[in-house]
């Protein structure tokens, strides 16, 4: 809790000083937190909007002479300062802050303010908005213990507090700590042995380099980045349909694996699409900004959600890179930090310029999106392309000069789902039922509808497959007021595509019509051809959001639609109605429409010609299918013409205020930045005082459990004063100077003596610094949700180390999705059960419970602060979740097969697999006793043993005696439940 920490730190500050605060009051450290938290809400940057004359967020304003000659602050004169008088006023109506705004200031806070005023009320710009400068390396009292500059800063602070560093951790524990931090996995026995056999500094550095270079390291960094990016496999609202962003996730893994400089990493994710000639990879990177939730609920007002998405992008960017709560300025000027509401919408306008829909598709990716083939996909495509090239050559060689007409003649009879119907006349009183045999086509299908017709009246259905209603579900091609109208409808008014020809179709004359749909789910994916020519259309409704199939027969000359389906039928003649299970191209449609085609004999062509074309055609189809099967990813794009952006009054989407254009906040800005790309470049420029600090602070949190600024999401006025301000700045400058080298930053941190200290704590130290903010000992803390599970799988030897690919669905208790939404969780089997947890399918409205029990982020919004709780649900999870029971079973199996023949040796082996150390005598005694107990029990109850061993789907080694295996499993499961095992220490 922030409050507890504040108390703890000020206790430390007071006790270390050993004297009153005098001579030491610093505005940014001591005074700003009080003014910001207790006064700025009314007397801060937003005061002008509340018509409050007094502002306390600048020296000039706070010392100005107000009514009656009074001043809030008279520098050097606390007695004449109204601020001091008012915070201690015994009169309830006069005392500040007012009772409604919280309790009075504490005596210590008052004293701080008083001394500060007495000392001249010196003002400083908020520390985080000043560019970091490399501080001099201080002289610490333990120079021999120092391994790098980090230690100089930390030790100097320790000395001030009257503390001293702890000795280095044991080598086993150190390697385990390092391995869990850098790879999220425990060291293997072989890695341990090699490390213990190696000597000194060199062995440690080699281990660090080996780990930093591993894919497992890239995966660990990615897991944390996914929290920041609110990455998930579903859309997050209501039905919470699936989306596919894993190609972006794999882009992140690849970037970390290559140690992409963090400035490039930033620019590509914020504006990769705006780079000159962007590569596919640079475009995929922008998926970061499409990871927010997308609402596909019927009936929403799209504009409301367009505003929501753009705001989410701004708020996420602000948290992730700027450590700023600028999102607070969405409804009003920021109450604590120097950001106006207008500035929020200037940032907003960078992110609202995207051709997207407010109403996302319920299922699947919503444009803008791009195909994102994997390397495997690309290889398959290359193979087809080379075959295709040969087939094209062969066809060119064989093709007779005048036979352009032949291929459509052949291909249009292929993939036909409804064969051309005979010509029928309709008098407006009947229709033809063409049966229900053809497969139902819908949302995700590509198809073409064709027919010939002569209309005698301007209204009437031509061909439909829809409910017999006026506003049906289904699809139809109908004449309506003389125009040809096409509908694909799930719900007529607001969940449908409605398109009609721009011009009427003439009556009493024969026509050919073709309508193709490319499964894009947008109106632009429907093409209408009249007499073989594509015609201009008018889009009436472009809001298709879910499946439109209707289990109805195909009707010719009748069916649901704008008219009354019980009375209004077609008048005229319809023939050759057919349905093709693919999108016919314009040449094929022209052929179908051509009047003389029935005279062409299909069999007249030479067989070799037909074979060659058939081969070519198949390959073209295969290529198209392959490309359609590529995974896609949602990305950023610009509108051809940027839409106008406005301040939204009180944040309401339907209350536009002044128009705004892209620009940086004045308090951070050093120049214009008209595009997202310019914003991205500024983000990682030296002009930006925040990004480097924010990023090093978060990596510090990843390693030490708490940031140097604990409020990693807020380095603004309301954020915490850093525990080691100079160290933070030193790291930030070092990071930038290194070319934003993340790997080097982490190496500096983990090779420091500070990191390598033992995490043992004396009661005195616990009392003195319970959260270990001063770092008189090494980091100790529970593992992240992912690491708790991954480690168990690794210890058990079950972990599948494949990197990347679609998300997987491991074990989860039955019925969790169903009770919330009616959807089934289709659990995977085999090796997919044992992938690393960052690949676990993330359904936002029902996230994996074993992740949530261990404080994972729910991935609905950006989250960067690490949280670690200690609850009974975690105990139940580790004891009874099949994933962990099965891991226990396999750890038992490893003990029995790899641990030797002696009981003690096996137990020692298993304990070491889990903790990286051998048990001491007492511990071994407990393990031996436990095994004996369970062995006795299972020896006399083979049924129970068999039941216990039935946990999980992986087959056990049947040669192991059942009772023995069950007894070892009980002990192994207990080992996996040890505090030491779920803790890095």
């Amino acid at each position, binding site marked *: *809790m922030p*409050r507890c920490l504040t*108390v703890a730190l000020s206790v430390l500050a007071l006790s270390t000083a050993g004297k009153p605060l005098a001579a030491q009051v610093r505005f940014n450290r001591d005074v700003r937190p009080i003014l910001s938290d207790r006064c700025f809400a009314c007397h801060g940057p937003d005061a002008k909007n509340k018509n409050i004359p007094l502002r306390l967020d600048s020296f000039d304003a706070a010392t100005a002479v107000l009514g009656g000659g009074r001043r809030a602050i008279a520098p050097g004169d606390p007695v004449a300062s109204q601020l001091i008088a008012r915070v201690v006023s015994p009169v309830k109506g006069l005392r500040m802050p007012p009772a409604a705004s*919280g309790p009075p200031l*504490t005596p210590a806070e008052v004293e701080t303010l008083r001394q500060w005023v007495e000392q001249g009320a010196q003002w400083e710009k908020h520390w985080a908005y000043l560019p970091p400068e490399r501080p001099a390396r201080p002289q610490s009292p333990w120079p021999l213990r120092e391994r790098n500059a980090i230690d100089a800063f930390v030790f100097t602070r320790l000395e001030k507090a009257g503390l001293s560093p702890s000795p280095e951790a044991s080598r086993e524990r150190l390697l385990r700590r390092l391995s869990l931090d850098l790879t999220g996995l425990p060291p293997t026995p072989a890695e341990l042995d090699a490390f213990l056999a190696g000597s000194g500094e060199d062995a440690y550095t080699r281990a660090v380099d080996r780990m930093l270079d591993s894919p497992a390291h890239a995966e660990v960094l990615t897991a944390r980045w996914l929290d920041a990016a609110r990455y998930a496999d579903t859309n997050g*609202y*209501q*039905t919470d349909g699936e989306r596919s962003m894993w190609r972006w996730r794999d882009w992140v893994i690849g970037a970390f694996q290559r140690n992409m400089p963090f400035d490039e990493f930033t620019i590509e994710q914020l504006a990769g699409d705006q780079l000159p000639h962007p590569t596919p990879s640079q475009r995929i990177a922008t998926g970061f900004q499409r990871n927010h*939730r997308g609402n596909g609920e019927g*009936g929403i*007002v799209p504009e409301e959600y367009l505003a*929501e998405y753009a705001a989410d992008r701004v708020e996420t960017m602000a948290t992730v890179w700027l450590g700023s709560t600028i999102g607070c300025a969405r409804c009003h000027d920021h109450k604590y*930090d120097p950001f106006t509401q207008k500035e929020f919408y200037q940032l907003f306008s960078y992110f609202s310029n995207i051709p997207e829909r407010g109403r996302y598709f319920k299922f699947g990716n919503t444009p803008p999106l791009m195909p994102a083939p994997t390397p495997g996909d690309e290889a398959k495509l290359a193979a087809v392309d080379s075959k295709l090239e040969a087939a094209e050559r062969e066809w060119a060689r064989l093709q007779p000069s005048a036979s352009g007409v032949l291929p459509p003649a052949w291909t249009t009879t292929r993939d036909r789902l409804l064969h051309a119907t005979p010509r029928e006349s309709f008098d407006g009183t009947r229709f033809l039922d063409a049966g229900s045999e053809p497969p139902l086509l819908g949302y995700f299908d590509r198809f073409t509808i064709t027919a010939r017709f002569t209309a005698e009246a301007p209204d009437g259905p031509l061909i439909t497959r829809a409910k017999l209603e006026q506003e049906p579900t289904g699809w139809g091609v109908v004449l309506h007021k003389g125009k040809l109208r096409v509908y694909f409808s799930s719900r007529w*008014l607001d969940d449908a595509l409605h398109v009609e020809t721009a011009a009427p179709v003439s009556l009493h004359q024969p026509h050919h019509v073709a309508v193709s749909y490319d499964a894009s789910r947008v109106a632009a994916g429907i093409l209408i051809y009249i007499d073989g020519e594509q015609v201009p259309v008018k889009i009436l409704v472009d809001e298709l959001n879910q499946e439109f199939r209707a289990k109805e027969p195909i009707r010719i000359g009748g069916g649901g639609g704008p008219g009354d389906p019980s009375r209004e039928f077609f008048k005229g003649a319809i023939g050759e109605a057919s349905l093709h299970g693919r999108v016919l191209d314009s040449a094929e449609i022209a052929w179908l429409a051509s009047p003389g085609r029935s005279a062409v004999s299909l069999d007249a062509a030479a067989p070799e010609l037909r074979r060659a074309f058939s081969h070519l055609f198949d390959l073209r189809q295969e290529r198209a299918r392959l490309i359609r099967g590529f995974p896609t990813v949602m990305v950023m794009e610009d509108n051809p013409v940027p839409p106008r952006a406005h301040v939204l009054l009180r944040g309401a989407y339907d209350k536009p205020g002044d128009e705004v254009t892209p620009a940086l906040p004045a308090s951070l800005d050093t120049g214009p930045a008209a595009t997202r790309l310019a914003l991205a470049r500024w983000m990682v420029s030296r002009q930006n005082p925040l990004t480097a600090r924010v990023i090093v602070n978060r990596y510090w949190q990843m390693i030490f459990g708490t940031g140097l600024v604990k409020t990693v999401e*807020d380095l*603004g006025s*309301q954020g915490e004063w850093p525990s080691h301000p100079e160290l933070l700045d030193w790291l930030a400058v070092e990071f930038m100077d290194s070319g934003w080298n993340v790997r080097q930053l982490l190496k500096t941190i983990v090779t420091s003596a500070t990191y390598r200290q033992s995490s*043992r*704590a004396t009661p005195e130290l*616990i009392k003195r610094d319970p*959260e270990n903010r001063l770092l008189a000992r090494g980091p*100790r803390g529970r593992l992240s949700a992912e690491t708790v599970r991954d480690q168990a799988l690794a210890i058990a030897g079950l972990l599948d180390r494949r990197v990347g690919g679609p998300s997987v669905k491991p074990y989860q*208790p*039955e*019925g969790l999705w169903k009770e*919330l939404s009616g*959807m089934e969780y289709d659990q995977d089997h085999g090796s997919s059960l044992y992938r690393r947890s960052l690949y676990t399918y993330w359904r936002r*409205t*029902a*996230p994996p419970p074993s992740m*949530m029990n261990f404080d994972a982020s*729910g991935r*609905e*919004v950006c989250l960067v602060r690490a949280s670690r*709780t*200690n*609850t*009974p*649900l975690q*105990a*139940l*999870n580790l*004891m*009874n979740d*099949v994933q962990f029971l099965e891991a226990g079973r396999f750890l038992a199996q490893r003990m029995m097969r790899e641990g030797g023949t002696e009981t003690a040796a096996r137990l020692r082996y298993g304990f070491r697999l889990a903790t990286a150390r051998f048990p001491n005598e007492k*511990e071994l005694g407990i393990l031996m006793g*436990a095994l004996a*107990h*369970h062995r006795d*029990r299972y020896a006399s109850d083979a*049924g*129970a043993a068999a*039941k*216990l*061993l039935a946990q999980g789907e992986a087959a056990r080694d049947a040669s192991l005696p059942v009772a023995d295996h069950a007894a070892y499993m*009980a002990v192994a499961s207990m080992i996996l*439940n040890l*505090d*030491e095992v779920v803790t890095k*220490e």
Partner: protein
Amino acid sequence: MDPIRSHLHLTSRRQFFSRTGMALGSAALASLLAEDSGAPVPHFPPKVKRVIFLFMSGGPSQIETFDYKPKLEELRTAELPASIRMGQRLTGMTAAQSSFPLAPSVFPFAQRGQCGMWVSDLLPHTARIADRICVIKSMHTEQINHDPAVTFFQTGHQIAGRPSIGSWLAYGLGSENKDLPAFIVLISQGSASSGDQPLADRLWGSGFLPTRYQGVKFRAAADPVLYLSNPEGLSAAGRRRFLDDLAQLNEQHYEDFGDPEISTRVAQYEMAYRMQTSVPELTDLSGESEATLALYGPNVRKPGSFAANCLLARRMAERGVRFIQLFHRGWDQHVNLPANHPRQCHDVDQPGAALVADLAARGLLDDTLVVWGGEFGRTAYCQGKLTATDYGRDHHPRCFSVWLAGGGIRPGLTHGETDDFSYNITANPVDVHDLHATILHLLGLDHTRLTFKFQGRHFRLTDVSGRVVRDVLS
């Protein structure tokens, strides 16, 4: 948390741990079960100790339940007047309708009880407790679609990320029972549910509060709480031995490493073990009398039904669970309302009324608050085709009805008025934040002072608004 209260928390928790001979870890504060069985520290004397929230997910129609509108009978099929709609937004589902014909309720209403409250024939059992409940006819919300509206109702904000109301209470008041969670969630499927309008874990999530405050879902499955049961083949005795050995090893390690987090973990394993007993005891209805079971109706014997969940709610109330959240799905009748609303009402009517009566009979109603309602109401005009017997209704955020019963509530009161169309509120509007403020008030909490600092801001359940509805208080 204010410093005084956090000090009290610390003190009482310390006492607990000193009783059990354990040191205190910083995450000892982090237990799910509020082990400080000492008195919670509300801002002022509370009227009630716990809340049972019967949430009707999907949006029940006020027009068929509590908001009697005889005028609609006369205006059947007439267009909704523009003077009533006043250009207010509709959902995209009906905004493009060419006509908005008014549809009266096909179900008759009558005045009930001494108080003369109007209740429709769809809720005969609720009608019988009219003198015990207070109906607010003038509820309104800002949200017009399910996901944001339910999220708004449960967290005070339409966008994900805020703590749910139960989490706020678990954080603010803790639990009265150290063997059960402070905040429990129960879900039932409506008879008219078509699988639409899903729920989401966020509705009982802890948002930016520590995850220990999130609601724990009790399920009608073999494991009422996830991972509660020992695996087959491991007996209770085996588990006890397992825990004893585990505790010994952890204590050994504590002696070596000195991190109080270790002893906290030992304590959490013991609590987990106690839950393995306390939860099955709680969910075992075999000790309930036939008379009690009959009170809740025949569905009470169906695990996972709303009736069974109501009975469980009473058992949880008896055991001091702070916030008991029921969700009943299936109320979203855009079409076929006359066929489906009776089924939904039948699901909830008898059990809900039985819960109130049962609590009263056991003397628990005096310090329990029961709340019944959904995320919004439904339109007076018909969605789709209006026939003599059939119609549907779209979402209507501008007025809807909820009822309250229990300690501190004025029974028999009907609060607020709507116009003849049940479209706009004409007197005493109550918004969602007001209802939240009132619930907190009854629990002895000032909604402006129950705050948590996150991202530099002191957040509260009621955001920047909320007003206690004093008129409904006794």
